[in-house]
């Protein structure tokens, strides 16, 4: 699958999981750092929230992948993809 399309699918999976399982005042609109910050503030989730931290981790890995996808495939790239899979699994357990 195209890397861009793959990242979109991952975002959709994560957002649907959070938005369908958590009954909060405002939905999570995206996985950019600022979208997560907005969601956390508007739902009164503090910086120690494990869900917020897991989302930030996934966000960071996705942005890293977006940048690194401009580079030739490397072993680190594969490692990061595995990290995203692990981070999404951890989030699934947390929500």
């Amino acid at each position, binding site marked *: 699958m195209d890397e861009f399309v793959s990242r979109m699918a991952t975002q959709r999976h994560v957002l649907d999981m959070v938005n369908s399982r958590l009954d909060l005042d405002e939905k999570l609109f*995206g996985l950019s750092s*600022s979208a997560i910050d907005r969601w956390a503030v508007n739902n009164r989730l503090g910086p120690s929230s494990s869900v917020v931290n897991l989302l930030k981790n996934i966000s960071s890995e996705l942005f890293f992948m977006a940048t690194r996808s*401009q580079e030739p495939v490397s072993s680190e790239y594969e490692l990061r993809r595995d990290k995203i899979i692990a981070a999404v699994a951890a989030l699934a357990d947390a929500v």
Partner: protein
Amino acid sequence: MHIYAFGSICRGDISVDSDVDLLALVEGRDSRLDPEKFSIYSYARMLELWEAGNAFAWHLSLESRLIYAADGTDFLRSLGSPSRYSGAVADCLKFRDVFESSFQSVQKGTPSLVFELSTIFLALRNIATCYSLSRTDSPTFGRDSARRLGPRSLDIDENVYSLLMQARLLSTRGAGDSIGDIDLAILLPELKRCRSWIEELCHEVNLNG
């Protein structure tokens, strides 16, 4: 390292919710650069995009300004024009599929409606840009590119178009007013018009290679 501004600020297309698009060209990795603030490319990769006639290379070629150069040179200008853009068919079909995935999600009652509307806006904008690069003499790269194609412009309800833009801002920057209840009876017919528009553009691009 080279740093360029590109996009709306270089067009003078400024509004209160405009951001500044920044490109960083680097050798290897530079941990000082936040990938949420910069599009980060190696020189080698940028050269590949230039030689492939990639749409982003054309965007940079036509709408970028040098901000900083460690060696005092303007790297992108030194490359001249990118090769002819030949990826229109593949690019348009990719973003047609991106649109379709989000459209299907909306129809099924997604719990992440803002994200899907944001993605639809992205697909419309990018298809318009790819079409304009391939089929017109005046490529358009802005967020409003779908409405800057002359007779081929996207014609949908103004409120729905504004809603899509609002969703894009919420999803990417977490900025703007939250979106309240959306009447799918109004939204879905407009999205079907978007879908028809995409099919027409993809068909034209496909016919002309």
